[in-house]
């Protein structure tokens, strides 16, 4: 591995930021997720054997870290929401995720549907590539994408 971490950072930072900022709407979440991605890159750099290009490798880390991040966040929100019933946390403590109108339709999707839609329709990745990155069959990607498009279109119709 000839590349240093700082070189990888300089070359891949825009790509990583582009993907995470399309995946999560809040600035703080984006920055947290972005930093988490590069920490993973740093930690796994010694295991990188160069079988794929650095860009592909970082892209794959970004996709999987983003998915885990959103799943974890949703779990935490569900817990906070459950605790708010018992007045452990007030409603004001709950972070409002979708503060931008543009993210409201995407907010209706589960983490995997959201990622599949972004990868397929915004990042223009092939279904085979997406299946490979997410480690799921192509059929699963297709059904997730179909369902995600349906939900988003329905939301767009509803909101005029």
């Amino acid at each position: 591995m000839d590349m240093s971490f700082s070189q990888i950072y300089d070359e891949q930072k825009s790509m990583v930021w582009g993907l995470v900022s399309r995946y999560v709407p809040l600035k703080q979440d984006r920055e947290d997720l972005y930093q988490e991605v590069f920490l993973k890159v740093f930690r796994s750099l010694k295991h990188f054997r160069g079988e794929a290009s650095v860009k592909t490798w970082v892209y794959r880390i970004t996709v999987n870290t983003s998915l885990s991040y959103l799943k974890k966040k949703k779990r935490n929100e569900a817990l906070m929401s459950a605790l708010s019933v018992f007045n452990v946390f007030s409603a004001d403590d709950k972070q409002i995720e979708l503060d931008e109108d543009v993210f409201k339709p995407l907010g209706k999707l589960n983490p995997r549907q959201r990622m599949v839609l972004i990868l397929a329709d915004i990042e223009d990745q092939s279904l085979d590539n997406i299946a490979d990155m997410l480690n799921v069959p192509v059929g699963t990607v297709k059904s997730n994408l179909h369902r995600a498009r349906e939900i988003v279109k329905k939301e767009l119709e509803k909101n005029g």
Partner: protein
Amino acid sequence: MDKYGEYLNKIRGTGGQPDFDRMYENIEAKTRQDKVFSSAPGIVASLAVLFIAGLLYYFIFIPVSGDPVRSYVFEKDTVENDLVASYVFMDDGTF
């Protein structure tokens, strides 16, 4: 362009330009913590070796009760400069 296409373009336009240098500094600070934590097992191993060496030294070189390995000549009696007796004090308290 249909609504869905317009919507995708809106999503493409989100993000803006963040402060990459500041975020790099944060990442670097966390990687420094990683380095400190990764050296911790080495420090613990060194301390363990020192501890075991200390224990071995104690059990091998420090006498246990009833097993004297050291004695001290604490007094000598001489007659006209000829040594006639040495009083030897053993570790177990006997002469």
